[in-house]
């Protein structure tokens, strides 16, 4: 019936397979092959996936803001759906980042949370992204609601840059993130890049799946509108 539903998402399945393999391989490799950190011990193994989620969050949110800007300049349903998919996935990876970070910090810095610049920045950026999504949900799918959501996503970009500047000035001499948790051997480097690649491809798959779903929703909504208009016209004809 529907053209999109019948199309086999071969590329998506392939990405998913690659992502799964990479993540799986990375987990096994991290558990078996990488040595425990000289200073931190086994807890350092959080690091590989923690940094990967940070990359995935950053890339998704930057892409989401950029696509929102594009949608603001030349509105299109496709761009809108892509922007929303990116921001959603960015928020999920942001949540993963904010959960794994404090658990690692507990061991390496002796406390769950410090107002270290990068921590503060990620917390605020995730909060901003969440508020963009909530706003999108509450503003409705009207053209105005879409523009409002997109403007806010665009606004978040310079805001994040300024927050970064401010918290860096503010943070002063807190421990820097990579201190004591760096890459100390070739195995660690391999594991690190495997985890990063796996998480990035997983994020890409999720964005693609959400994008398809949102596009489908848009098409269903449009069809429902068409159908209602048609029914109205028929009813009017019947009356005449």
């Amino acid at each position: 019936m529907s053209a999109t539903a019948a199309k086999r998402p071969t590329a998506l399945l392939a990405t998913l397979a690659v992502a799964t393999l990479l993540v799986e391989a990375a987990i096994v490799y991290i558990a078996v092959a990488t040595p425990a950190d000289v200073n931190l011990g086994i807890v350092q193994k959080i690091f590989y996936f923690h940094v990967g989620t940070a990359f995935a969050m950053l890339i998704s949110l930057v892409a989401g803001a950029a696509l929102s800007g594009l949608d603001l300049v030349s509105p299109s349903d496709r761009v809108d759906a892509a922007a929303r998919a990116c921001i959603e996935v960015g928020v999920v990876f942001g949540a993963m980042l904010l959960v794994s970070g404090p658990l690692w910090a507990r061991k390496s810095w002796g406390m769950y949370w410090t107002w270290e610049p990068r921590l503060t920045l990620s917390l605020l950026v995730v909060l901003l992204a969440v508020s963009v999504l909530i706003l999108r949900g509450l503003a409705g799918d009207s053209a105005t609601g879409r523009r409002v959501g997109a403007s806010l996503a665009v606004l978040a970009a310079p805001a994040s840059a300024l927050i970064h500047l401010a918290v860096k000035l503010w943070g002063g001499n807190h421990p820097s993130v990579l201190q004591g948790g760096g890459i100390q051997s070739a195995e660690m480097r391999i594991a690190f890049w495997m985890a990063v690649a796996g998480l990035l491809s997983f994020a890409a798959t999720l964005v693609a799946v959400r994008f398809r779903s949102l596009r489908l929703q848009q098409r269903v909504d449009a069809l429902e509108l068409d159908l209602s208009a048609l029914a109205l016209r028929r009813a009017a004809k019947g009356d005449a």
Partner: protein
Amino acid sequence: MSVGTTLRLTGALLRKDVRVAARSRETALLVLLFAVLCVLIFAFGFLREGAVAAEVVPGVLWVTLQFASTVALLRLFAAEEEAGALELALRSVAGPAPLFFSKALMQLLFSGMVTALVLPMVLVFFDATRIPLGATLAALALGLVGQALVGTLVSGLMVRVQMRDVLLPLVLYPILTPSLIAGVKVTAISIAGGSTEVIGTWLSLMVVFDAVFVLASPWLYARASTP
């Protein structure tokens, strides 16, 4: 539209807003009362018997101003929400830019009024009347401008959004963090007698903040609200 025309239209719209506010006076009263209560609540929360905590002064001052300004922001577009007045204003010869700037100036008037009340109150209640105020006054001016620019944009974007009274602070506060951090820092450093060089760094951060949003906010407002 030329700069002169924009300025004239902004002035006209601002005069209208001031007149409306002067007639009803309810928003101003509401905001001022809220600010007073805010300072009182902080006093109850922070004052210890026998010891006055001078180190809480920056936080109390800036957080009170941020909260009270939010109340004003929620009422900023109240007159335009009725009877499609916002659409008419946007479609009129004025367009979005003068509307935005007049509302931002109106917000600045409100928050300036709040500051004129809150600053002496905090200084008196927290026994901080002897601290040097020069840098703090400069920071307040810059901070309120930044707050008005971002706040007017967010408030204007959310005119048609449900539950915006809850959503507005949720969106606004993370964006305002740099300005808030800088303001608190400037006041704290000048109370502690720190170097003017460090104060200068923070003040220049606030200047950058204002410069970014004096450009970004009207542009985004025009993009998001013109049909």
